[in-house]
């Protein structure tokens, strides 16, 4: 008899615990930020390193900033859909893919343009002429719904090549480098600084960069949950302000930026320096610069899931962006 | 056919020490004899059969069949076990055929049919072991041994798991077969009653280590 009560007690304890985990209300004093180990997100790394973010947000009641690293954007957004993250440094395309599926978030600032590179194995790179040389090759890039994937696929399709004419292997950046080293793939199309790692190892050569594929295409942005946009605008405005400061700092102090990135990722400073030299990276903060290519991404994602979204229109600016916060931030900044 | 056991001893070695199972067995078995070996449980009578079957080798002494030392099991010394030993995945027919198959004999059907007839197993050819009574199982085992045309048939308390009714019936049957085929049979049992019913010659074994106490030979009234 006693045993039975114990079992019932434990049962309720466990169900209660599980219920508590699922319905857990997030502490409002904790800000959870998602990012990836790519140079695009250097502004966040600098802002954290310098203590600007913590200091700036303290007066709004933020006691703790939790950073969460993800290998790729779609995974980052998936966690955000699960309610795990408040603000993301992430590619714009994953945000759009999320919003199509009901992600309650919007883009509030720009982070980065361009910087990707297509690297092919040395012997294949020698005979590379143009995009048509890629037919039949195995290329590693980020997962569907990420910016690299969409930029790459759109480039192919614009030239009249179906993505099925080559084998696109989707994976995170370090897996991509490993696959290239193992000879599993013929080339990679990845964000900085990963293409350069392969060049440095003498395995492959850069044949195309963002500039030659799609000049000025948007890459990363900052997106925030609608909840925050509705309720705690002042936190976001302060955050954008710090982001602007950090972005300018990265541009003006490249050596320190190299050091910081190396510290965060364990990638050799020489590699990062080479990436700065070879890849046309462009750190920005104005979200408006990203709008044209973001709308293109929205169309491509719509196309990729045509049947699923047939009853709706491709997403527009209003559904993807929330611009007033940035305007407020710069008006107060200067 | 002539089977000679000369000064046969068997000792088992284990972690706990050694156990002497048989000591100085001297025995001569002649063609067509029906020999019963009687002794208390654990006296080594099963060991004796296993030695003759070639499943084990004596520690000392020699066992000769027609002057040739026995070194391995062979169909010419067929052993019927106390436990049921049919192959459960084979039908009755296939069980009986097993030995012939192993020896690569060609016209197996003729031989198998002959022993199915002899053991009165007709109609049960396609049954499987679990569909047979204990008595049936032992009859199949006997048929399976006989169709290899063994020089000696060794039987190790084959009816000890059967009820007395079935046992009596099988006693009759085995005597019948003995008369019909003239096979040499060595039959081990712990029951003196069974031995006197069957055997024309009875060997009495002592407690462990098993030694021959006496050999009695008598004409059975029939």
């Amino acid at each position, binding site marked *: 008899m006693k045993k039975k009560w114990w079992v019932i007690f434990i049962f309720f304890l466990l169900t209660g615990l599980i219920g508590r985990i699922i319905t857990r209300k997030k502490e409002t004093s904790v800000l959870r930020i998602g990012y990836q180990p790519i140079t695009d997100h250097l502004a966040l790394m600098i802002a954290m390193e310098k203590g600007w973010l913590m200091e700036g947000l303290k007066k709004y009641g933020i006691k703790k900033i939790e950073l969460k690293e993800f290998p790729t954007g779609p*995974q980052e957004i998936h966690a955000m859909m699960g309610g795990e993250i408040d603000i993301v440094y992430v590619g714009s395309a994953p945000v759009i893919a999320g919003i199509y*599926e009901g992600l309650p978030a919007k883009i509030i600032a720009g982070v980065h343009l361009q910087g990707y590179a297509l690297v092919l194995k040395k012997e294949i790179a020698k005979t590379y002429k143009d995009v048509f040389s890629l037919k039949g090759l195995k290329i590693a890039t980020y997962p569907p719904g990420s910016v690299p994937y969409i930029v790459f696929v759109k480039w192919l399709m614009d030239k009249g090549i179906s993505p099925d004419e080559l084998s696109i292997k*989707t994976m995170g950046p370090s897996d991509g480098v490993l696959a290239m080293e193992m000879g599993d793939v013929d080339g990679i199309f990845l964000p900085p600084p990963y293409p350069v790692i392969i060049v440095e190892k003498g395995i492959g050569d850069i044949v195309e960069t963002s500039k030659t594929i799609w000049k000025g295409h948007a890459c990363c942005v900052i997106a925030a949950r609608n909840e925050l946009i509705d309720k705690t605008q002042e936190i976001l405005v302060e955050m954008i302000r710090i982001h602007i400061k950090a972005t300018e700092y990265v541009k003006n102090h490249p050596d320190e930026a190299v050091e910081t990135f190396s510290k965060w990722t364990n990638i050799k400073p020489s590699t990062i320096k080479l990436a700065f030299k070879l890849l046309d990276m462009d750190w920005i903060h104005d979200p408006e610069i990203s709008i044209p290519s973001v709308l293109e991404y929205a169309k491509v994602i719509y196309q990729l899931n045509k049947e699923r979204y047939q009853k709706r229109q491709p997403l527009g600016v209003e559904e993807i962006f929330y611009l007033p916060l940035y305007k407020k931030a710069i008006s107060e900044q200067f | 056919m002539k089977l000679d056991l000369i000064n046969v001893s068997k000792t088992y070695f284990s972690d706990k020490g050694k156990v002497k199972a048989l000591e100085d067995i001297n025995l001569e078995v002649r063609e067509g004899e029906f020999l019963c070996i009687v002794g208390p449980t654990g006296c080594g009578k099963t060991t004796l059969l296993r030695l003759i079957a070639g499943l084990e080798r004596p520690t000392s002494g020699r066992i000769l069949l027609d002057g040739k030392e026995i070194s391995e099991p062979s169909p010419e010394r067929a052993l019927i*076990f106390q436990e049921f030993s049919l192959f459960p995945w084979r039908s009755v027919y296939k069980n009986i055929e097993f*030995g012939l198959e*192993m020896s690569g004999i060609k016209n197996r059907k003729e031989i198998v049919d002959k022993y199915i007839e002899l053991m009165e197993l007709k109609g049960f050819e396609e049954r499987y072991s679990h569909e047979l009574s204990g008595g049936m199982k032992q009859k199949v085992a006997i048929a399976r*041994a006989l169709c290899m045309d063994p020089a000696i048939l060794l039987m190790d308390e084959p009816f000890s798991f059967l009820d007395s009714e079935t046992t009596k019936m099988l006693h009759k049957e085995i005597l019948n077969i003995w008369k019909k085929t003239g096979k040499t049979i060595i039959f081990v049992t712990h029951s003196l009653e069974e031995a006197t019913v069957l055997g024309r010659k009875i060997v009495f074994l002592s407690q462990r280590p098993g030694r021959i106490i006496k050999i009695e030979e008598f004409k059975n009234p029939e």
Partner: protein
Amino acid sequence: MNNFRTNFIVSIFTFLLILEFLARFVVKNPVYLPPPSSALLSFVHLRNYILKDLMTSLMHFFIGVGFACFFGIFIGIGIGWFPKIYNAFFPVLEILRPIPPIAWIPMAIIWFKLTHFSAGFIIFTGAFFPVLISTYTGLKDVPRVLIETAKILGAKSALSLIRHVGIPYALPYIFSGIGTGMGVGWMCVVAAEIFGVSDSGIGYRLFQRFYHFHQMDYALVYMLLLGFVSLTMDAIFRKLVIDRFLKWKRGIVK
């Protein structure tokens, strides 16, 4: 049988109904819990993929389970029959056995590259041990009396004893091991396809598409598909095996 089938349908139908209710009126967020009815529509959307993905996954599955059966039975017979082989192999196998199939992924990529055999290998690591252990148990359990009977009836070599006594006796064990191995192997299909070995497959579609586009209703369809296919394969396997090979021992393989 009929009773079983009715029960089966009622149970599943009730389960789906409860899910539907929870999804529509309690959770109310299709990302957290897509209503099963939306899965019906998704089936239509996904009609061009399902067959292709299923075929690819089945190919990975049969590569893995095929090799698992071959090596599992082969080595299982070896260690089940010969104590020396057992002594040589067993410690190694005991160390390898607890390693979960997913842990083999990095090795698989290095050894087999991004090919179907890489996926097959992951499935192999899942299916191999159930087959091996059952085969081993089956051969070890062969009653001594049957071996001795066979010896007396003229089966001389170890090979002929294994062929005529060991394997037939162990067959129900081996089949039950294959059944378990198939179940575990199928569970590994998704893991095997996560890392991009192919451009189709159930696991590929789940992780490379639905996950990255957050299409949870599609994911649900594929999850249900995984369950349904496994159930079907199991039923077919059991029917074929029990009816054909184990006439003499119905009821052992459950």
